């Protein structure tokens, strides 16, 4: 339970921010906090993959896009022409389809968001398995390039396939009703509710991953990171663990993609871009690789700033610089002990001749 305690102050912050924003009539901040929360969900998954399983992925925007695009495609493309198809009729009879009318009064029949979400997440998981099996045999540069290649292929696909709207992406994605009247959508009236949905999802993800890290599986993963050979000799099936972590992080990315797409009411090809994947890696690196709390904090802060447009046209440049600076000076993240030591030593250099030896 001890590991879950820090969630309480976090929860207090989340509620506090909402109260302050509601009180000061600055609810628009909640919009970016909501989006930042979804991106952070992906970043948490990537953090486990990179920090604990030790596998870099430069293609996680691809999984985000798979989630978002499939859910968007299924809930927007009308099935009216296939109405007489047996499968469609069956789905309709089970209530998994949604019928209604378009703005122009045409008949509309689409997959319900619940089913679409399930299909999207499942697709991401299946693709992750098929990509992961060969890719995770690779190491270092090869792994980086292979995942980068995967990401670019997904980008090309969404950019070239008509179903995914080519350069325009998919818009007019309907709301995603959850339960008890809650639904994921971008309506102004539901802004506060959606803020809590996003943070609920994120905190749930965080709890699941904290549980995972402090368990037999988590210790196995950290063991692989410490000494792969010894972990193997302790009975840890390293290949399987890496694959499962890869799939897990892909699912987290896909969930983030699905929710954010329904929240924004659309998705565009830039979400699948290489720069997005690199940005996620950058954030995990700043947070300190094997540090879920660091990844969460950095994920929220950096995404929030970026979404607020604080970095202006230097957005990508900022993330590029972050990558370099962090890897040069604080490869274990800015929250790491060694970096804090270095900082204190840097500032106290003149006064102290010798710091505490290693």
């Amino acid at each position, binding site marked *: 339970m001890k590991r879950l305690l820090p969630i309480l102050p976090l929860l207090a912050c989340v509620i506090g921010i909402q109260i302050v924003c509601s009180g000061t009539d600055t609810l628009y901040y909640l919009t970016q906090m909501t989006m930042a929360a979804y991106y952070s969900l992906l970043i948490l998954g990537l953090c486990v993959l990179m920090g604990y399983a030790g596998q870099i992925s430069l293609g996680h925007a691809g999984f985000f896009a798979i989630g978002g695009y499939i859910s968007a495609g299924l809930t927007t493309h009308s099935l009216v022409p296939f109405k007489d198809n047996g499968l469609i009729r069956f789905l309709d009879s089970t209530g998994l389809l949604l019928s209604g009318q378009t703005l122009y009064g045409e008949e509309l029949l689409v997959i319900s968001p619940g089913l679409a979400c399930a299909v999207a997440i499942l697709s991401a998981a299946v693709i992750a398995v098929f990509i992961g099996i060969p890719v995770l045999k690779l190491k270092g540069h090869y792994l980086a390039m292979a995942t980068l290649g995967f990401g670019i292929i997904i980008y090309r696909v969404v950019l070239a396939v008509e179903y995914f709207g080519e350069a325009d992406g998919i818009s007019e994605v309907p709301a995603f009703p959850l339960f008890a009247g809650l639904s994921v959508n971008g309506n102004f009236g539901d802004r506060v509710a959606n803020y809590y949905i996003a943070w609920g999802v994120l905190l749930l993800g965080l709890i*699941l*991953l904290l*549980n*995972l890290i402090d*368990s*037999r*599986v*988590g*210790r*196995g993963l*950290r*063991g692989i*990171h*410490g*000494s792969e*050979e*010894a*972990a*193997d*000799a*302790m*009975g*840890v*099936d*390293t290949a399987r663990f890496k694959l*499962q972590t890869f799939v*897990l992080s892909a699912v987290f990315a896909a969930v983030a993609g699905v929710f954010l797409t329904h929240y924004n009411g659309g998705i565009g090809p830039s979400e699948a871009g290489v720069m997005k994947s690199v940005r996620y890696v950058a954030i995990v690196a700043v947070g300190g690789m*094997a540090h879920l709390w660091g990844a969460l904090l950095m994920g929220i802060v950096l995404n929030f700033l970026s979404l607020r447009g604080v970095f202006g046209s230097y957005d990508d440049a900022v993330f590029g610089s972050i990558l370099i600076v962090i890897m040069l000076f604080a490869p274990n993240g800015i929250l790491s002990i060694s970096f804090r030591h270095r900082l204190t030593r840097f500032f106290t250099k003149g006064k102290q001749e010798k710091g505490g030896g290693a």
Partner: protein
Amino acid sequence: MALLEVKQLYKRFGGLHAVTDVSFSVEPGQIKAVIGPNGAGKTTLFNIISGTFPATSGSVLFQGKELQGKKPYQVAALGMARTYQNIKMFSGMTALENVMVGCHVQSSAGFLSSMFRMPWIWREEVAIRERSMELLTLLDIAEHANTDASSLAFGQQRAVELARALAMKPTLLLLDEPAAGLNIYETAEVGRLITKIRDLGITVLLVEHDMSLVMDISDEIVVLCFGEKIAEDLPAAIQQDPEVIKIYLGED
């Protein structure tokens, strides 16, 4: 039936013949030692037995099952544990956590059940923690349980590594130079410990350079030289073996 049977094992690294036609067997309940000068192929032999890499040819039978072609984690699951000549700690984890990783094969929590903390996971976690603590106590390093393992002193790291191996509840324990880098008191302690481990019912195969330790505790000794087995006998007989003496004392 022998617990471990090594048959006509060969290993070549490019042109280097690291192990050449080595056969021997280990009986249950024994402490068996493998000795030989530096570069004789002892560690290579251990690596083949534990599945780190395959032999060029030959076979290794453990409880009658062929191990060649099995991955290390599969060998571990069959009940074989090992330590390393140059300690391989899980850095970034505490001593206790290191030992808890050793409980891996003895437990079963998977990804989903760990994430959702099923009730039986709770119980398993508690059992793992208690057992690991017991082992640290047995090896007299309980007070360092929550220290980062890679920052411990050398001898303490060896102890953690041993505890980690014991946590696997192995049938056969491979120890690669467990006394290397230790002083005579610590070495004697290791000797007592190995005997104690054997008395717990764990068969031990050990590589060691410290002759007094080896002669003291082992039931049988295999001597390797340049990858070949040149003798296999009781300690007393090995001490008398002219060829072994020649190797250890040099020809001149």
